């Protein structure tokens, strides 16, 4: 028999996305009783990572699995039961495609002695001769569990709010990260390495001596951001500023599209801020300012959930949720779990996709065009495996496409395989928005056997539009003691989500410290009979 859940908590959190998980950790940390519940059977919601089998079937998944409308509970006078979940924030324009055969053709199989030894023979041959591996759907599916494919990939700044929070709260010890090993951009029809550090700048053969000086001087000016330097650019773009500095096109390109992660339309002040953030994060954990979480971005929310659990948070996934109970004053009273159990709490926090329709009817949604590609090689081959971040300017620099390429060392795919994530603000459809970048980086679909194409081949692709609810007002139409958590945004990092989580936490518990440092294992002594003390910072 399963355990029945306890019947009363300080706070109920529905959904296991990043924002929900951070709120959960923060509330448990200060001693609040937390029920963290999800109708899905996995952690992460819109922030999850999936194996190949799961992501291949993602489109068939019902977003509101396990939402039960047949609950039968006794309500008090004035109370009403509201159904959980809405369909306003589903993934849209999904399109998935395999570009490799399901199985090896018959003649290929017969070359191997026995069907079962197929795998061994192939890999051995591969190691020995270095011939290109032949991938089939069947073969990739056999390695399905080695995949951790993000539906909302994220890269963190080494000195960004996320990393600082992880360290200050002592959550950092739960998970592992990898430094992004190179930053690329698309310049003059080629992929070029962006010089990140002083030594990069000076050792880069594509940057002339004069350009080196220009670049260093410019970055210095941005870092100091003297008032005089930028006083004429309050309403001008960063691009204008760079042009006025009479820099070479190459330097402008590196600074604008890569270091400042900007477009030709980005305001000057924002460009300068971005440069500062980039430079501040340099030299902390690796050669670039960026970090990626091992085993996928889905791990991020799990780390916060773990802290919540360690401090007493109750975790229940894959639950049948029967509805929310609100009283006559439109105050949240409880959650119906299963058909009959009502679990009471004074606060409700939920992922936006779990919200009843009536709270989100006026929420405006914008979309992010996303593409995921499984490939058989790196976009820019090299001796050692790289974790690559590429800023690709689209539409003549009016938009920027973020590209993240992950190899097997990140724990997200098997050996010999790469996962490439692309995302940009949606303008048309994901396919149309990303086409320019896709056509440059990968072999074209129509194979031209005469010309040897060195670029990687796409084995599987998945395009979709992901909702972005971060600019919407999520307090409107929502009762006082209930809070909505937005899904992923189009930023590279999750710093904005941390800000949102903190806001929600502070609305519920003003003047309480947000995620104070958790004690180290060595600092804990258990049961020596004296009174309990709260660990001091």
């Amino acid at each position, binding site marked *: 028999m399963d355990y029945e859940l306890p019947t009363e908590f300080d706070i109920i959190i529905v959904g296991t996305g990043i924002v929900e998980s951070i709120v959960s950790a923060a509330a448990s940390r200060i001693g609040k009783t937390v029920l963290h519940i999800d109708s899905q059977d996995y952690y992460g919601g819109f922030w999850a990572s999936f194996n190949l089998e799961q992501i291949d079937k993602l489109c068939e998944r019902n977003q509101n699995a396990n939402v039960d409308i047949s609950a039968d509970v006794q309500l008090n006078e004035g109370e009403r039961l509201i159904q959980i979940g809405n369909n306003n924030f589903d993934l849209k324009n999904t399109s998935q495609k395999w570009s490799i055969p399901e199985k090896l053709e018959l003649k290929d199989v017969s070359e191997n002695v026995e069907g079962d030894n197929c795998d061994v023979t192939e890999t051995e041959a591969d190691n020995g001769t270095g011939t290109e591996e032949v991938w089939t759907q069947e073969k990739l599916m056999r390695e399905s569990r080695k995949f951790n494919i993000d539906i909302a990939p994220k890269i963190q700044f080494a000195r960004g709010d996320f990393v600082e929070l992880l360290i200050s709260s002592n959550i950092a010890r739960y998970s592992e990260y990898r430094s992004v090993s190179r930053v690329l951009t698309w310049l003059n029809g080629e992929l070029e390495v962006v010089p990140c550090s002083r030594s990069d700048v000076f050792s880069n053969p594509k940057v002339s001596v004069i350009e080196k000086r220009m670049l260093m001087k410019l970055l210095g000016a941005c870092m100091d951001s003297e008032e005089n330097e930028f006083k004429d650019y309050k309403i001008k773009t960063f691009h204008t500023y760079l042009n006025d500095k009479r820099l070479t096109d190459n330097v402008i390109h590196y600074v604008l599209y890569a270091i400042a992660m900007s477009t030709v339309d980005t305001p000057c002040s924002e460009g300068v801020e971005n440069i500062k953030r980039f430079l501040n994060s340099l030299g902390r954990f690796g050669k670039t300012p960026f970090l990626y979480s091992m085993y996928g971005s889905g791990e991020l929310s799990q780390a916060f959930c773990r802290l919540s659990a360690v401090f007493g948070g109750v975790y229940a996934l894959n639950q049948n949720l029967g509805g929310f109970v609100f009283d006559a004053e439109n105050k949240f009273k409880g959650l119906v779990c299963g058909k009959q159990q009502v679990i009471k709490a004074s606060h409700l926090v939920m992922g936006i996709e779990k919200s009843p329709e009536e709270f989100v009817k006026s929420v405006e949604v914008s979309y992010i065009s996303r593409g995921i590609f499984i490939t058989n090689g790196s976009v820019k081959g090299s001796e050692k495996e790289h974790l690559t971040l590429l800023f690709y300017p689209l539409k003549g620099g009016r938009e920027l496409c973020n590209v993240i390429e992950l190899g097997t*060392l990140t724990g997200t795919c098997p050996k010999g395989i790469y996962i490439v994530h692309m995302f940009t603000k949606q303008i048309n459809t994901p396919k149309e928005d990303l086409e320019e970048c896709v056509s440059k980086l990968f072999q074209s679909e129509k194979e031209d056997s005469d010309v040897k194409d060195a670029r990687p081949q796409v084995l599987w692709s998945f395009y979709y539009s992901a909702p972005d609810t971060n600019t919407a007002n999520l307090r409107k139409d929502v009762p006082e003691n209930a809070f909505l958590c937005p899904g992923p945004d189009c930023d590279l990092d999750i710093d904005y989500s941390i800000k949102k989580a903190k806001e929600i936490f502070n609305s519920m518990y003003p003047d309480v410290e947000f995620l104070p440092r958790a004690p180290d294992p060595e600092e804990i002594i*258990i049961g020596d009979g004296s009174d309990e003390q709260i660990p001091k910072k």
Partner: protein
Amino acid sequence: MKNYNFAKYDGFILWRCRVSKVLVLRKISIDSVENLIRKKSVQSPTRKVPKHGEQNRDGTETERSYASLVLRFVKGQFHEYQESTIGAAFLTQTVCLDDTTVKFEIWDTAGQERYHSLAPMYYRGAQAAIVVYDITNQDTFGRAKTWVKELQRQASPTIVIALAGNKQDLANKRMVEFEEAQTYADENGLLFMETSAKTAMNVNDIFLAIAKKLPKNEQVTGPGGSGQGRRLTEGDAGSKATGNCCK
């Protein structure tokens, strides 16, 4: 060198166990014992697990027996009535093995398994696991078997699994025969010992046996090593001056 740090598995685990417990161990470094200095005098935060009737009795029982085994190992202490679970992410302990020492991180499931909601993160990089059952309770042995199956399915294929029949000091109330457990362990390639957190019997031995069975890994996988990622710590925060673009 074979890289055994790379545990990979599916996402979602649905446990059906209440009493038996799993400890996951990570061999994190080979280090001299002197480096392991423990600070004192900060106490565990109170865990507030809401009471829920009869079932909780089971849960608390186990957590106690699990926690006591770890505590006996780490601190050499045994407490009859201790906090149900340790209010920490994990504990660390060092085992001396010939001329080297193996430092373990011992991870707790933090209660997430109670409603079948253990996060996949729990298995990442796990090199060994101890499945604990209570020799005075046949049900716990059954659930221990379920844990073993889950570990074999979800964790790294090279994981070392040890089965610990705890509460050996209560052998007169025994419900699980030694031979039965030994046979099961042999069939599944598990290390097996009966332990007592109360009398300290076999507690060090089981950890030592695990340390011996772990694949020798000469190359210490520190931050940025080939197979493992890095843990982010303030200590890594190198000075901003070196390698920086500006100034």
